[in-house]
């Protein structure tokens, strides 16, 4: 044999063996050291960062601990994974000032201090603002008795020591409810569009509040009106910020109501939303379309967004929002511990709530979980806060690797020191399809509370236990907002992910269902016929907004009358009459 060929064959064999070792299943255990800590018992996982100031949110205390012990790079990695905004050693925070009984909320001064009408509160606000700045932080905006800004990571505990401060946490953010609309034909909007306006020919102004409007400028005059009014309220100030979600929403509204004048407002946090609603009021818009939501609040119709909706309503604005896409990712139940070991039993002796996540999903979305319970206390409409939790429960996330459960992370806010009955863990990635698990521990509680848990998995039927009822996201529970669930635009069937009511105080929500799974331009989500399209209650919301805008632009009916007309024309689905799965039924603009 030729010597060269011989060496070549030996080399080839060596490579083949190496590849075989890499791709064939072996007996070596998967390396999980990068993301998990083995947990044999709970006390073994106690760490120093659990001792810090309880007023600081658990995830921020953990960040501080990592920053102090492992350095800035580790802190940045942790912040990135948890989707915390960390830049130049400063972390995005929201600081809540302790409210006083005499506090008056004649509010809003977005550039400086809020005008509260209460000298004591104004002094407290000024003191906190000075303290934030002394500690190297920045106050970006204020609303009611909240600050939003950035604080030096290492100073959060010192900041929270100030007695005027009630809570230091990461800002509550809204997320977009994941994504020519077939809905125009499905809702019979096309038939109304072809009619000459009767006794009204006034353009309707629609404000779309969303996370971003990427590529909108390329669609002006085609898929969108020739001009739109835009404003960003986020820290970046960008309207085209990489997110196409808002652009797709606008496409649907334009499809439904071609003559509507569109206003785009970009937001991320609650403070941004406060500003956006003020802006919408100043622009004298008729409708707000809000395909966003979050898990914050007790879902009983109270909360900051509901208060904003009341303000918008007083200004003549009708607010439409998506019901949420949590129908298949929600579990609800009351704490149950028959063996008295502190861990919640989801069923029988089962203390581990299992769910399956593919590697692809974990990399794309990140594995996360949210737990909250019915312990928010009393809502104060004046100070925009809750009296606070009294029961302390904690949340633990596990992963199943090689048949063994490993603790990945925990969320252990210390209620009532931390006033919100809320725990959250995220966002983890793993290179294998596997089961993950969640456990709930009764840390310091005298009552067996009712939990709501959200585990965004994006694959239907992967949760061990699922409760579609009560899976709304905020603000779909607001009595002052029209919430819209999802119906397939072609099949006219319920979409499994569409969040359901009732609200925590027993009201029927969503109010109505509208098409989802519709085609958009290639600049956003693409055509359904080509396997793409815009799915989710995010797509349903603008169909309802557009239907209202269309009738409002062509008839003399008031907006409230139009809403009632659309409710009356909705095609009933499910059990007879309105229900918390379909609301009044499927949006339909024709007579039947």
């Amino acid at each position, binding site marked *: 044999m030729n010597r060269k060929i011989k060496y070549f064959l030996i080399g080839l064999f060596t490579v083949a063996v190496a590849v075989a070792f890499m791709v064939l299943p072996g007996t070596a255990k998967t390396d999980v050291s990068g993301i998990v800590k083995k947990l044999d018992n709970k006390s073994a996982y106690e760490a120093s960062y659990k001792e810090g100031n309880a007023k600081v949110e658990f995830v921020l205390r953990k960040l501080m601990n990592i920053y102090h012990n492992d350095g800035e790079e580790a802190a940045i990695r942790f912040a990135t994974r948890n989707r915390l905004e960390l830049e130049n050693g400063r972390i995005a925070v929201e600081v809540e000032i302790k409210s006083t009984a005499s506090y008056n909320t004649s509010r809003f001064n977005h550039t400086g201090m809020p005008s509260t009408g209460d000298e004591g509160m104004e002094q407290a606000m000024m003191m906190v603002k000075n303290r934030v700045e002394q500690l190297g932080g920045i106050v970006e905006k204020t609303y009611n008795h909240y600050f939003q800004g950035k604080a030096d990571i290492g100073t959060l505990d010192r900041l929270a020591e100030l007695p005027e401060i009630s809570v230091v946490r990461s800002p509550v953010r809204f997320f977009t409810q994941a994504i020519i609309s077939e809905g125009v034909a499905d809702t*019979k909007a096309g*038939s*109304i569009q*072809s*009619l*000459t*306006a*009767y*006794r009204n*020919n006034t353009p309707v102004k629609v404000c779309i509040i969303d996370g971003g409007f990427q590529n909108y400028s390329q669609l002006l005059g085609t898929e969108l009106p020739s001009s739109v009014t835009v404003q960003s309220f986020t820290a970046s100030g960008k309207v085209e910020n990489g997110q196409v979600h808002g652009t797709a929403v606008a496409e649907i509204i334009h499809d439904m109501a071609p003559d509507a004048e569109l206003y785009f407002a970009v937001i991320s946090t609650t403070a941004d939303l406060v500003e956006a609603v003020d802006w919408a009021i100043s622009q004298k818009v008729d409708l707000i379309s809000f395909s966003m939501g979050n898990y914050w609040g007790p879902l009983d119709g109270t909360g900051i967004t509901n208060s904003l909706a009341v303000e918008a309503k007083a200004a003549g604005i009708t607010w439409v929002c998506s019901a949420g896409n949590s129908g298949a990712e929600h579990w609800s139940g009351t704490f149950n511990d028959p063996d008295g070991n502190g861990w919640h039993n989801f069923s029988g002796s089962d203390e581990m709530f299992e769910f399956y996540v593919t590697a692809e999903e974990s990399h794309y979305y990140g594995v996360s979980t949210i737990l909250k319970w019915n312990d928010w206390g009393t809502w104060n409409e004046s100070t925009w806060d809750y009296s606070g939790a009294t029961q302390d429960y904690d949340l633990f996330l596990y992963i199943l690797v090689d048949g063994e459960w490993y603790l990945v992370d925990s969320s252990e806010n210390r209620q009532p020191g931390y006033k919100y009955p809320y725990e959250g863990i995220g966002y983890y990635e793993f290179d294998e399809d596997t089961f993950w698990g969640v456990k709930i521990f009764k840390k310091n509680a005298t009552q067996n509370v009712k939990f709501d848990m959200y585990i965004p998995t994006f694959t239907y039927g992967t949760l061990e236990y699922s409760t579609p009822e009560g899976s709304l996201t905020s603000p779909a529970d607001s009595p002052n907002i029209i919430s819209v669930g999802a119906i397939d635009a072609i099949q006219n069937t319920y979409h499994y992910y569409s969040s359901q009511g009732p609200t925590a105080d027993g009201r029927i929500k969503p109010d109505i269902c509208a098409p989802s799974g519709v085609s958009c331009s290639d600049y956003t989500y693409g055509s359904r016929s080509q396997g793409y399209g815009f799915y989710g209650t995010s797509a349903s919301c603008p169909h309802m907004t557009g239907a209202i805008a269309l009738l409002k632009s*062509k*008839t*003399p*009916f*008031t907006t409230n*009358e139009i809403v*009632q*007309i659309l*409710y*009356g*024309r909705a095609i009933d689905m499910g059990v007879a009459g309105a229900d918390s799965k379909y609301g009044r039924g499927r949006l339909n*603009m*024709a*007579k*039947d």
Partner: protein
Amino acid sequence: MKKTMVFSLFLVVMFAVSGLWAGENLQGKSFRLGIGAGYATFSDDQFDGSVLVGLKITYPLANALRVELAGAYTSSKITANVDGYSGGKLKVMPIQLSLQYCFTAGNLNPYIGAGCGYYLNDLSLDGLTGWENMGFEITEEVKNKFGFHFGGGIEFKLKSNLIFFIDVRYCVVKIPGTYTITDTVTGIEQSGDIEKDLNPLMFGAGISIGL
């Protein structure tokens, strides 16, 4: 509305008959009865121009002054418009009382005049099928209204007792009304006031005879 129009026509005819009777009892002065036809245009372009027919009676008050009572009828077709309907009819019957000044010169008698009138109106819409198909019922009603007019004309003496005349007059009148749109599914209705600028410009010609 139909009853009102019939009654008004009856009044005009009765006035003419009474004029015949009165003419026999007045010396040197006589009623003249005229009949004519013409064309009317409207300032609101949703109303098409339309043919009109009319009847008038004049009575001299002094050498150059006379009083005229006239009645007319026209039915205007409604064209598609921004108010949402694609067709219909507006029937208008003005009853006008005028004071006229005559510039008599031989067989020609130019005149000018002005006065006021009562406009009997009826609106019927037949082009709302689009909204009706979508489950919305729409009704509109217009009311009768007073208005003013001015104009002039010229009379040609054809025979001792027969005159040919042409007449032009501009009428200032806005007719009020109401609309109602009802969602037939829920029964929710919305109504409001409407006002249509009629302002007809009427051209007419005809003959009159002395009584």
